[in-house]
């Protein structure tokens, strides 16, 4: 029997990130409805999303998830992360600079700023998150709007290690590399292409996709990136 491994690898990416997107869209509708209902406090927000988020986090391939408020969107706190993470699914609440304990302004982090600017789904990373997860992660975020402005982002973290375990066998069969929208390596079949290295995006379709499965192809003696699959497809 012939198994189409490129489909298999693409299917695993779709299975993981598709599930995240479904959950973030559900959270977006739920949180937007809460904001449309009147002023929202930190306690109300957390109570509103806790059960569903913890149910979503039953999936062990996820590192954390929740809703991160835009500045002054909540009535009682300027910045807030209704976020659960880690093995114990611990609640975060506030982000601090780890060494000084000062409150950190997360609004300049790419996982917040990029969806704020584009209005679209975003995958940030691979990057070392020293504010929340303390891990090497990829963060998927979706902006949530209420009353004509962004109330915050719904998001989920996946550790890069989990993605390696999940996707490396399929990538090996293809001799391929998974890159992010900026052409940074997430996982590669080639042991010399380290995670975090920049190799670029394929000329066709690479820029619109948050993730691309690519392979180096020899075209007239010139190396070119060939796109095998992408997400969202």
């Amino acid at each position, binding site marked *: 029997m012939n198994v189409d491994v490129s489909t298999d690898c693409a299917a695993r990416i779709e299975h993981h990130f598709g599930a995240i997107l479904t959950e973030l869209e559900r959270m977006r509708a739920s949180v937007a409805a809460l904001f449309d209902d009147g002023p929202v406090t930190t306690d109300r927000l957390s109570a509103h999303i806790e059960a569903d988020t913890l149910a979503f986090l039953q999936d062990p391939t996820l590192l954390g998830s929740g809703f991160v408020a835009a500045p002054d969107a909540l009535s009682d706190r300027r910045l807030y992360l209704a976020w659960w993470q880690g093995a114990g699914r611990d609640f975060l609440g506030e982000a601090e*600079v*780890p*060494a*000084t304990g*000062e409150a*950190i302004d997360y609004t*300049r982090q*790419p996982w917040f700023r990029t969806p704020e600017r584009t209005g679209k789904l975003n995958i940030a990373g*691979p*990057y*070392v*998150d*020293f504010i929340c997860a*303390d*891990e*090497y992660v990829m963060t998927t975020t979706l902006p949530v709007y209420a009353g004509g402005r962004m109330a915050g982002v719904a998001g989920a973290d996946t550790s890069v290690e989990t993605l390696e375990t999940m996707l490396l066998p399929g990538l090996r069969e293809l001799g391929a590399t998974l890159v992010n929208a*900026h052409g*940074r390596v997430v996982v590669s079949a080639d042991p010399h292409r380290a*995670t*975090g*290295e*920049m190799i670029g995006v394929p000329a066709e379709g690479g820029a619109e996709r948050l993730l691309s499965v690519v392979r180096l192809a020899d075209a007239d003696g010139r190396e070119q990136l060939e796109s095998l699959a992408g997400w969202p497809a």
Partner: protein
Amino acid sequence: MANPRAISSRARSAIFAPIGDEGRAVRVENRLAEAIRSGVLADGDRLPSELELAQMLGVATVTAREALVSLRAQGLVVTTRGRGGGSFVRAPEPGDIVKGRLATMSRVELRDRASLYLVVLTGCAELAAERAAPDEVEDLRDLLIPLEEDDVGRWRDAESELYLSVAALTQSARLTREVVRQEADFGTLLRVPLSEPDFRQAAGERHRALVAALGSGDAAAARASVRDHVSHAVERLTEIHEGVRQ
């Protein structure tokens, strides 16, 4: 050349050396002092009695007493007599915490900690220059505060966040966590000289040089600018240390 066997047997004898009651009192004292300085034990909190403390920590009563005497001498604990009396936590002022740490630190220890900090942070700068994308370096510019700013707290927080961000750009979670440890351990001391306007100016220029080096992918220049800054800060800190110790 040192005999490796001799080193390992010396290391072994250090590990298995009896701890002794003298060492225990210092350990009890350090544990409580750390808890007070970090705010785990808050100002006005009542400490357990000597007897209770000894039982909880599994040491002799005389050891607990010795530790409390030393904490009183450091001004971290106040003891009152009579009804409602006991030992109470006295939280130090933030500035006193740093001065207190400096006062109890030898010059050798200061240099020892500074060396570890220097090696870790210069290494991070070098890797970050090789691995950072241009847009990531752009984000660091937000952490460069205007040279005329005179809020010392802002300078200290921004510098700490800048170094943590540089560590994160190595793409290594372990290295980043090590820098978090270094910042908590030595960062607060290293930032003491930022209270001086001239030092701040020079520091601000060195941080701008670091970000420029990262932006152009110049690993040697990035390493050199961190080394330059940490060395200057340590020199000044050593002078301040001398003043506190005298």
